[in-house]
Structure formats: structure tokens, C-alpha cells
């Protein structure tokens, strides 16, 4: 795993040396790029905030827990351990929340247990779909269609089923 930490510094080094060869004014250019950071964040912020508020509300109302309990038998049928139900359901909404949940699963069942491995795969093979949809469709002036979001959720869910199965045989 050690060589992985080399990728990013090497990437910067290579680019900056190359840029110097091309007589790019590094300082001016780098600051120019940073100038775009705040407008970018501002364009994103409202969508981010509303999404996070909604997921907090959903969690606080207990509806998230109800949904988990309701879906647990179906999950078991599909080969997903019920212990990771909550993680699978939370992941599309909250990245930091599911990271916290993953640590809880590790300490409750041990990091090398079957459940923990399933949880890892469930966590690693999907993304925080709602956050990403907020970010990517922020610039779109049209009405946001639910179809791509449903596709992403469905594909991620299939990946969890496959991942739990793979954990069993590998």
C-alpha cells in the first residue's frame, strides 16, 4: 500500500516541472485556479445544505430506522446480512454518517468478521448518491429527472448483493 501515497506528490512534481519547461508562470497560474474555488462552492452550497438538512430530518424522525426494520427481511432474502441494512440504506444519504456506522460495525463484530467484510464492500462499492446528484445537477437549468438517480441507486444495490455473495465465497 505504501507506493500509493507516492502518486499524488509525484503527480504534482511531474506537472510543475513540465509546466516550468513550458515557461508557465506557476505562482500566477496556481492562484488563478484557486480564484475559481469560491464561486464553485457558492454555486453548490444551497443544494448541499438542503440535501443535508433533509437527511438529518429523515434520520431524526425515526423514519430511517422504520424503513430499515421494514426492509430487513427482504435484505436477508437477498443474502445481505441484516446487520448491515442500516449502512446500505444510509450510504446514499450521508458519507460521514455511513463512515461512523462502518466503525460501529467494526467494533461490534470485529474488523475481520463476515459481517464487517460485507459492510466494507457495501460501503466501498457505492457512493453518496443524493449528495452527488445535488452537485452534478446543480448547474442544470432543467427539471431534475428522478430516472438517473433511481438507476444509480438500483445499480449500487445490486452491487451490494453481489458483494455480499462474493464475500461468502472468497
Amino acid at each position, binding site marked *: 500500500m505504501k507506493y500509493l501515497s507516492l*502518486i*499524488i506528490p509525484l503527480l504534482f512534481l511531474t506537472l510543475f516541472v513540465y509546466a516550468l519547461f513550458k515557461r508557465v508562470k506557476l505562482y500566477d497560474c496556481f492562484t488563478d485556479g484557486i480564484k*475559481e474555488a469560491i464561486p464553485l462552492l457558492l454555486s453548490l452550497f444551497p443544494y448541499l445544505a438542503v440535501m443535508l438538512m433533509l437527511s438529518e430530518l429523515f434520520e431524526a424522525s425515526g423514519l430511517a430506522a422504520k424503513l430499515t426494520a421494514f426492509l430487513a427481511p427482504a435484505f436477508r432474502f437477498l443474502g445481505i446480512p441484516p446487520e448491515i441494512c442500516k449502512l446500505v440504506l444510509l450510504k446514499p444519504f450521508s458519507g460521514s454518517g455511513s463512515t461512523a456506522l462502518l466503525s460501529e460495525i467494526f467494533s461490534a463484530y470485529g474488523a475481520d468478521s463476515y459481517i*464487517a467484510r460485507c459492510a466494507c464492500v457495501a460501503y*466501498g462499492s457505492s*457512493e453518496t448518491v443524493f449528495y452527488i446528484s445535488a452537485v*452534478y445537477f446543480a448547474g442544470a437549468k432543467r427539471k431534475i429527472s428522478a430516472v438517473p438517480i433511481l438507476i444509480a441507486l*438500483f*445499480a*449500487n444495490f445490486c452491487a451490494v448483493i453481489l458483494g455480499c455473495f462474493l464475500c461468502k465465497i472468497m
Partner: protein
Amino acid sequence: MNGIFAILFLLSAVVLLFLDPDGFLSALLKGGEKAATLSLSLLAVYCVWLGFFKVMEKSGLSEKLSHLLFPAAKRLFRSQNKEAVYFASCNLAANFLGLPGAPTPLGIKAAEKFCAAREHYAVDMLFVLNATSLQLLPTTVIALRLAFGSQQGADIFLPTLLATLFSTALGGILVFLTRKRS
């Protein structure tokens, strides 16, 4: 999206009204607070990578890269918009390498340019490919496992990779089949 938002918000609000009326405002505030802290860390990440990408652009490296990637990527996104396709393919590459934070600014730039050209198919495809995660190495998970005393922290690498490749391929195919060409 407006419909989903209204339904989830109203349902949660009604439940909270009966169970825990004080929890309503505090949940909203907690969400806002999370957005504020997340924005700050995002801002830090954007500063680094937007600076980096600007240098890449000015040195002429991005142009070379986009020449290289264009033929394959234009098929994937069904777009002739060279600049947007370049950002989109860099976004995929950064995702794949798992460069923390780098994919987002690239993805947003690509999405903005696709939107300006009214290429909705490309935005949908870009979104689904990002949302199904195509990270080569789940670094966060492995680090967390090792922190919890795992003996073989990396043994989930293969199942995760297979599962995520599967979800990305499935998502891509579904977009291809269901979204109309623009």
C-alpha cells in the same frame, strides 16, 4: 426531485410533530451545520485541485490529454463538445485513481459545459458513472479496517472492485438503454 423533497420533508415533519417537536429545528440546524463544515473542507480541496488543473491547462498538458481521450470518451458521452468531454474523462480518471476530492471540481465543470450545450444524456451518464463509484482501491475502508486491528485489511479489495465494476457497468448500460439521445 421537487416531489421527492416535498414528500420526505413533510412525512418527517409530521412524524416529528407527534414524537419530538423540539427535534425538528435541531435536525434542520444540524443539517445546516454539516453543510457549513463540509463546505469548508470542500473549499480546501477545491483550492488545491483547481490550482493544479489551471497549471495543467496553461502548460498545454490538458490539450494533449484531451486529444488522447477524446475518441473513446465522445462515444461514451455522445458529445462532440471537446472541452466538456475532456473534463468528464479527467473526472473518470481521477475517480478511478481515488484522488481525494479531485473528481468533484472536474465533474462540475464537465456538467456545466454539457448543460450549456443542452447535452442531457451526457450529464446523466456522468452522474451515474460517478454515483456508482469506480474507485480502484477503497483506501478509506482499508485504512479504517487496519485501525480496528484487522489482520488482512486489504482482503476486501477484490470483492469491492468486482462489485463496483459491476454497478458502474450496470448503471452505464441502464443509462444507455433508458435515456434518450439529445
